[in-house]
């Protein structure tokens, strides 16, 4: 018996061109997606990152059967959804950037309606909606009309509406936009939970790269309709840098020595002891009188940290953390202001 369909969604060579509007000949057609190929595995949380106008919404619209590609193919669970868009609609739920229906309906009824439109019976919908009201902490607003909710609550309710009917695939366009920090954390947790417990495949479009990092299992960074990077956050981080950094906060027991002197002393000893021609040199940066950052090769970090701590003296260290490049760094590397620089660098090397 063939069980798993590993690749839940297979997008290949997907191109979407919007014809230029207006009469002016100067206007060019917009290539919103440019030969995009990617696969999204069953049960993973997949992130689509990229600047405004990168083509993220256009891509998810096509995956959801809401827009017809100009070229290329999309298979969801092995079924060609360009031919059968109804299939993906029966399987997937969509939390759009804007324009959720049920504006003038009370939240608990909106949940019921959403469930029933997803094919649930009234009783099933009732049970699920009550469960979701609990999980999403919507008790207080259950009797409020949807249009009377704050922007953030609308997003949470929108997520609830999308979860009705227990979709196999959940596509979220900016689920944490406009949310306060507590709710944002909550939404990330919910996404993680539903992914873990129900095995829902999640596609997340977000600008909140730093926070999404813990949730996303794989990401694609898109710009100008093209995939610039694709892989697990860890892989992508390694691609741009093999360094980790040790972030040290020192306390007042420094007495006579200041941070800068310590940095110089430690650097000297470190270079003597660990540095080799094959590895990058240790880099130090004094961020503030009490803060010191030491960049070190990731593979060596364990040994090196012990050495540094004993050199400086544990009683002087208030706090320290070892960090790797963040997903945000990866994002900035590909689409940030330095991105074109990075690219020309790569170009000159090859």
């Amino acid at each position: 018996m063939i069980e798993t369909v590993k690749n839940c969604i297979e997008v290949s060579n997907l191109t979407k061109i919007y014809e230029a509007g207006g009469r002016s000949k100067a206007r060019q057609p917009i290539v919103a997606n440019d030969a995009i190929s990617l696969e999204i595995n069953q049960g993973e949380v997949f992130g689509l990152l990229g600047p405004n106008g990168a083509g993220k919404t256009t891509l998810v619209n096509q995956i959801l059967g809401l827009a017809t590609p100009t070229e290329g193919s999309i298979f969801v669970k092995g079924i060609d959804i360009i031919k059968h868009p109804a299939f993906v609609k029966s399987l997937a739920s969509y939390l759009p950037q804007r324009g959720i229906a049920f504006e003038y309906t009370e939240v608990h009824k909106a949940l019921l309606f959403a469930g029933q439109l997803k094919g649930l019976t009234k009783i099933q919908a009732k049970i699920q909606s009550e469960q979701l009201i609990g999980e999403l902490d919507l008790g207080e607003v259950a009797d409020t009309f949807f249009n009377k909710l704050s922007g953030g609550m609308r997003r949470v309710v929108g997520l609830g509406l999308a979860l009705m009917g227990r979709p196999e695939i959940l596509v979220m366009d900016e689920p944490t936009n406009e949310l306060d920090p507590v709710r944002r954390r909550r939404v990330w947790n919910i996404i993680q939970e539903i992914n873990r417990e129900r095995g829902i495949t999640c596609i997340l479009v977000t600008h909140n790269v730093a926070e999404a990092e813990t949730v996303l299992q794989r990401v694609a960074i898109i710009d100008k309709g093209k995939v610039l990077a694709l892989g697990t956050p860890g892989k992508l981080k390694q691609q741009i840098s093999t360094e980790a950094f040790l972030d040290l906060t020192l306390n007042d027991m420094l007495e006579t020595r200041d941070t800068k002197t310590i940095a110089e002393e430690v650097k000297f000893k470190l270079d003597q002891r660990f540095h080799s021609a094959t590895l990058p040199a240790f880099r130090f940066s004094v961020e503030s009188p009490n803060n010191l950052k030491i960049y070190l090769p990731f593979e060596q970090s364990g040994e090196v940290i012990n050495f540094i701590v004993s050199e400086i003296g544990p009683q002087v260290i208030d706090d320290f953390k070892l960090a790797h490049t963040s997903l945000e760094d990866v994002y900035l590397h590909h689409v940030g202001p330095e991105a074109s620089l990075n690219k020309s660098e790569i170009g000159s090397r090859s």
Partner: protein
Amino acid sequence: MTTREIEENPTLNKGSLKTYQNNWLLRSGFNQLSRAFNDFRIILIEQIYIIRRYLVYFFFLNTVGPFALVFAMGHYAGFHPDQTELLRIISGTVTFALVTVGFTSVAQRLSIMRQQGTLLYYCALPINKVSFVTALLISRLVILIPSIVTPIVAGIIMYNLEIHLDLWLLGVMILGAFSLVALGTTLGVLVKSYELISLVCNAFIVVMALASPNFIPNYLLPLPLQVLGWVLPSTYTSDAISHCLAGTYDRVSYFDVLVLSVMALVGIVITGKFLKWSAD
């Protein structure tokens, strides 16, 4: 293993493909029909929730308006209308109200939904386009009730009119309203911009309500307007209603009903075909 690979490899078991398709490709006809009806019901309720915010105003204004119109027409310039003329005033007012209220409502709603992105939200749901359109249409028929009832009541109260009330009349009025709303919807589908829709609707309203065989009998109109009247649904609605009110069912009124049915059907078919059910 993807289904594509399964399909391409005939030696493999096709069980898992079937599981996915069972839900949907192989859904039985009856199942689909009951789903479609269920979707229709839910969307209808949701649409009525949208309307209910201003239902009181709506009923009030749409009662006062037709009432005043019947009153004014009956006393116009020392005119003493006879029974036939009074019936024409009543049927004309009903049609007038149906045109002003019914023709634009769905068209405007659709363009609002398009603008807000709600239309796309519905597209993303596993629902049928026909269920959606029909629910939208029917929801707007509800607000036409006062427009239909008031002129008749006004006629009875103000002029002691003897009106022939029966189910046939009810059917004709619903059909008239439906065809007007359907054609208005067609407009909302074909014309994308909100501003343009208002313009076009207003032009249609003026012609249908005033410059066609509605209040003014056909033979009194100049020839170009008579010809124009043949293609407007309002002409047939008005004619059919006045026949029904008088209780005279003849070949002409059956023809009216036929034309209205065809127009309603054409409206729905065009809407179903051209309503863009996507983000393209």
